[in-house]
């Protein structure tokens, strides 16, 4: 917040205050060099509105906890520069879409976390520490398929961007199905068949309309659309094999 003020013109910031029945409240702060959206929220909370609730932890794009809706699109606010998203010196910052609002910019992630269980997670291994680790070749087709879908940090940006989630609350959503795809391709997972059945069951991959919002918005550039397509193909061809 000590960086140089770059414009005479103030940044007009509308921030969601309250829960589901809340409203947008206007604030004005100075425009600065190298200012992220998270910097904006922090400055408002520290200088103008101490009761403003929001989440963040790492501030460097590792944890994903600062995800919010900025000018209508879900983003990691710590990795979003104001200059890249500001429209006519104005920003609108809201909590993530498709999740219940708790207070201000904080939403309840419990329904999102539940989707992983509904998609057949978590991993379930049968080996104990006394047995040798399973040998999985890095270039085996299953490992390659799983690799492409790993690195999800469960930030809920894709879940928030998904149209089908907003229409159908029973839909598991892209993150849960992406996780299911990694498990279906994991030979060490001893519930592969069950995970696949859950991912293809009610509210599963068959509900996806392939709009691609998830792939478009994923901050770590994963492709949940690809994972969901893989699950759909498996419905025809059976579980992937080596």
């Amino acid at each position, binding site marked *: 917040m000590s960086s140089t003020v770059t414009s005479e013109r103030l940044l007009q910031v509308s921030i969601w205050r309250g829960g589901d029945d809340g409203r947008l409240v206007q604030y004005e702060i100075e425009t600065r060099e190298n200012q992220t959206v998270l910097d904006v929220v922090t400055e408002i909370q520290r200088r103008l509105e101490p009761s403003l609730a929001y989440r963040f932890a790492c501030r460097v794009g590792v944890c994903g906890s600062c995800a919010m809706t900025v000018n209508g699109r879900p983003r990691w606010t710590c990795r979003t520069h104001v200059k890249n998203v500001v429209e006519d010196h104005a920003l609108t910052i809201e909590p993530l879409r498709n999740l219940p609002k708790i207070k201000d910019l904080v939403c309840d992630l419990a329904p999102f976390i539940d989707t992983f269980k509904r998609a057949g997670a978590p991993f379930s291994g049968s080996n104990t520490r006394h047995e040798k680790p399973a040998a999985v070749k890095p270039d085996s087709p299953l490992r390659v398929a799983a690799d492409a879908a790993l690195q999800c940090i469960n930030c809920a940006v894709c879940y928030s961007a998904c*149209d089908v989630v907003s229409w159908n609350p029973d839909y598991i959503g892209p993150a849960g199905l992406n996780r299911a795809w990694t498990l279906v391709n994991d030979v060490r997972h001893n519930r592969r068949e069950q995970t696949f059945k859950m991912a293809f069951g009610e509210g599963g991959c068959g509900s996806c309309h*392939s709009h691609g919002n998830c792939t478009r918005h994923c901050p770590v550039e994963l*492709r949940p659309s690809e994972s969901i397509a893989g699950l759909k193909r498996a419905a025809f061809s059976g579980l992937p094999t080596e």
Partner: protein
Amino acid sequence: MHPTRRHQSYLAAMAHRVSGALLALFLPVHFLLLGSALDGPEALDHYLRLADNPFVKFAEWGLVSLLGIHLALGLRVLLLELTPWPHRTEKLSTWILPSALFALGLGLLFIYRSTS
């Protein structure tokens, strides 16, 4: 349009869905017309002569174009969902322009065939 939907994959999905819905609206009329053949060739010809009306011809051109765009974008969905990636949604988004051109071409071919 909602900001999360401002990308080509969404546009392709919507064009596919809207063209499908419009074609579905036409289907009852199509079957009604075909069903008139059960009353003899004169009954069917009576309806077919309606196609000489320029407005009906224009509507038919619209239907052929809708069929073209729905067919092309349906192929995109099949490729997207049933063939192994590494193709990316972005790459398949380039499917939109060829689909539109294909539909336009099909519509023009219809006009050419029905006026020559």
